[in-house]
């Protein structure tokens, strides 16, 4: 039973608003202390899924299990107020008529008043908001409001924490800082966390696991590295940046591409049989260099500065283009002939 403690499990959840199918047959399991990111464009059903888990929406079908207890089933619906769930809203939804302390105390269960206050003080300290007890929400900055909202959600000692784009209204520099604090606290408290975001960089930076959702369907669930280097389709791949997409046909053990043949065992292929290779995996060499297992060769046509790296566009034999990323500064100039190696 211990493994079920603080675990969130959803199986085959579907939900629709009238004719619009918002969530289609989604299943996920999040273990305690794990931060799971749900990444998708707006309108992809990710917020709906959060609301279903919290009990704010009744799904059409499927079950939600929180800490081993079914809260949603065909015959059963636990009201949101009886679920062990914390929810941080995109707009934080702090009660504007209550000060910070009373916002945190709002959802705190029973016990003595003095103990509640002590617990609230601990929570505020944990989110680095001690000393703001009597401040009213509108006097706080976005980041501070976010941390109070987190403390308030944690006050019920939830098994599961749901974060709905909690960092999207913060400016870029503050975002990383608040995100780190938030996720550290959640991991420390061993809570299963589901974080919804539309920002791929945020998902990469904060998730132990990432699920990509599109049009209500889960497309891929993986750890960040796998998602980056082994996306299941082009759209997912392009979410995280430039990728080379090559038509390929099977030829004995190797994959034949217009640019040459490749051993496919370690390379991802999407459902249409295209090869997907990140620019980081391509290594450029001067034609004179003696390098083993050169895949193909071509001519540099463009070099884009990206700060720490450069994106080099190479035109290969059949006029198709390949992208390679190398550390800046590079000596490649348009017109240079190059040899390309796949670096695995």
């Amino acid at each position, binding site marked *: 039973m211990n493994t079920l403690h603080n675990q969130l499990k959803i199986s085959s959840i579907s939900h629709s608003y009238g004719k619009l199918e918002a969530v289609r047959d989604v299943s996920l399991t999040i273990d305690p202390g794990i931060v799971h990111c749900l990444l998708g464009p707006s309108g992809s059903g990710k917020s709906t899924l959060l*609301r279903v888990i*919290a*009990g*704010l929406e*009744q799904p*059409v*079908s499927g079950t939600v299990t929180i800490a081993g207890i079914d809260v949603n089933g*065909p*015959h059963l*619906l636990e*009201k*949101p*107020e*009886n*679920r062990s*769930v*914390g*929810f941080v*809203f*995109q*707009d934080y*939804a702090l*009660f*504007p*008529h209550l000060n910070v302390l009373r916002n945190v105390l*709002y*959802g705190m*269960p029973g016990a003595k008043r003095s103990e509640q206050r002590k617990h609230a003080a601990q929570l505020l300290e944990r989110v680095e908001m001690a000393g703001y007890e009597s401040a009213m929400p509108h006097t706080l900055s976005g980041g501070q409001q976010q941390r109070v909202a987190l403390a*308030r*959600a944690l*006050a*019920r000692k939830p098994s599961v924490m749901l974060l709905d784009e909690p960092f999207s209204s913060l400016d870029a520099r503050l975002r990383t800082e608040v995100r780190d604090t938030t996720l550290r606290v959640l991991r420390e408290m061993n809570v299963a966390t589901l974080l919804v975001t539309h920002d791929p960089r945020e998902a990469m930076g904060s998730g132990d696991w990432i699920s990509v959702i599109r049009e209500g369907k889960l497309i891929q669930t993986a750890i960040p590295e796998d998602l980056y280097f082994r996306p299941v389709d082009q759209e997912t791949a392009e979410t995280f940046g430039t990728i080379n997409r090559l038509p390929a046909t099977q030829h004995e053990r190797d994959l034949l591409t217009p640019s040459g043949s490749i051993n496919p065992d370690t390379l991802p292929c999407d459902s249409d049989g295209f090869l997907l290779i990140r620019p980081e995996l391509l290594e450029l060499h001067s034609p004179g260099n003696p390098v083993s297992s050169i895949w193909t060769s071509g001519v540099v046509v463009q070099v884009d500065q990206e700060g720490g790296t450069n994106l080099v566009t190479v035109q290969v034999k059949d006029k198709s283009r390949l992208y390679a990323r190398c550390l800046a500064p590079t000596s490649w100039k348009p017109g240079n002939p190059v040899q390309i190696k796949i670096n695995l």
Partner: protein
Amino acid sequence: MIQLARVWRLRWTWTLTSLSIAAFATIPLIEICRHIGRDSDGTWQHLTETVLAGYIYNTTVLAVGVSTGSLLMGVCTAWLVTMCQFPGRQVLQFALLLPLAIPTYLLAYAATDLLQFSGPVQTLLRETFHWTKEDYWFPNIRSLSGAITILSLGLYPYVYLASRTAFLEQSACVLEVSRTLGVGPWSSFLRVALPLARPSIVAGLSLTVMETLAEFGAVDYCAVDTFATGIYRTWMSLGSLTAAAQLSACLLGAILLLLIIESAARRKLRFHHATYRYRELALFKLRPPMALLTLLFCCAPVLFGFVFPVILFMLKSFRNGDERAREIFLELGQNSLIVAALAGLVATCLALITAYCRRIQPTPAVKVATRLSGLGYAIPGGVIAIGLFGPLSWIEENIDKGADELFGWSPGFWLTGTMVALIIGYQTRFLAVALSMIQAGLTRIQSTLDDASYVLGRSPGRTLGQVHFPLLRGSLLCAALLVFVDTLKELPITLILRPFNFETLAVRVYQLASDERLDEASSGALAIIMTGLIPVIILSRLMSVSRPSLNRTNKPLP
């Protein structure tokens, strides 16, 4: 299975409460409809042969006349104070709302008193020019045209308010574009500003027409027979509930038609702001002769619709109000306060429940129930009273009979013999006022606060108490105040449903004025006017925050 799961989710108590409030609000309508086509022992026959044609003619002419009058006064003054720079503009933009504080029947009493043969105006004319009765013609205020003038003066602020809000919301950019395209200021008004403001003006106008159709006191005093006075007379003098209900049904038909026309007109006329850039309007500076003319034009409605009547009542009250009259007014004032405060409180509670249920559970049934609960404002007071009288008596009789059989004790006239019937009547009519105020307040509370509260372990009921109630305090107070003032001024419901020997300030003022004893009525009239100022102040404060530049809710939407 899906169906079952959804039903499970419903919070039944909320839905049921909302539905029963709506059911109560629709009782008068059902009762009126029940009487259509019934035999009224020849009364209906008698009415059609004698007065019905007159009712139709007078009501139609009155409605058309008042619409024209209030459109002229309301739209023009709104445009002038919004767009032109002239002395007194700042004061006038709020002062133009003042006539709303005076119930139209008091305006009628004042106008008659001032303009009658023995009144100050005619006396002054005779003395100055040494005329006698035969030497001159003077308009008779107790006529259809008199009633039109009085009602236009009393009701134009609805149109003024609607059009001013619309003009304020228009961005100056739109008008400036028109000017750069070579169209002059007046032409721009007619071709751009006015068409854009049309949906709001239609809304304000329909409110005016609704009030005109429901108008009882002023019309009755001007001796113009309309449906509203006809309904009252058929019930009070002829004693025929059925005939009164049938007259009511005719009036309701007209109102329904009006509502359909209005919604059709507004649907066709819905505009979206093409630009989100809002710029403060640059005012046209008027040269002295024009400025003076404008000032006079804008002052006239305020003077005739508010200042003169108030001065008249004040003079009468100070000069002629005797001790005894004051004592009676104190006692009646107490009655009025109790009834109005109770009505305000009950209406606010019911409206809060209805509006909150609509928020947390917007099922089709609840949506319909909310609409029905707010329907009463379109139904004239007299119609509501007639529609309630039958059902309430029936309930009372049956409970009385039952109690007598069971316990050998009869509770008597606990409904129609007490304030209860009166309060129910007021609820039916004024619930809409409280409802719209509270709904507006609720929409300003973001829905994530509800969700946050549920997720933090609160039921909807406790959320209402701990989150919405404190945040809504202002709206709730406004709602209660508006209903309070409306109740205080109300005439026909009070006249028909009040318990025997129970009088309110409004009723006594009405009766004294009917007996031509305006001097004695003046203190009561003043008291009613003073309380009537409360909603005007609320309105003008609301109006001053509706400027987009100050209003944060008007931010452009992505």
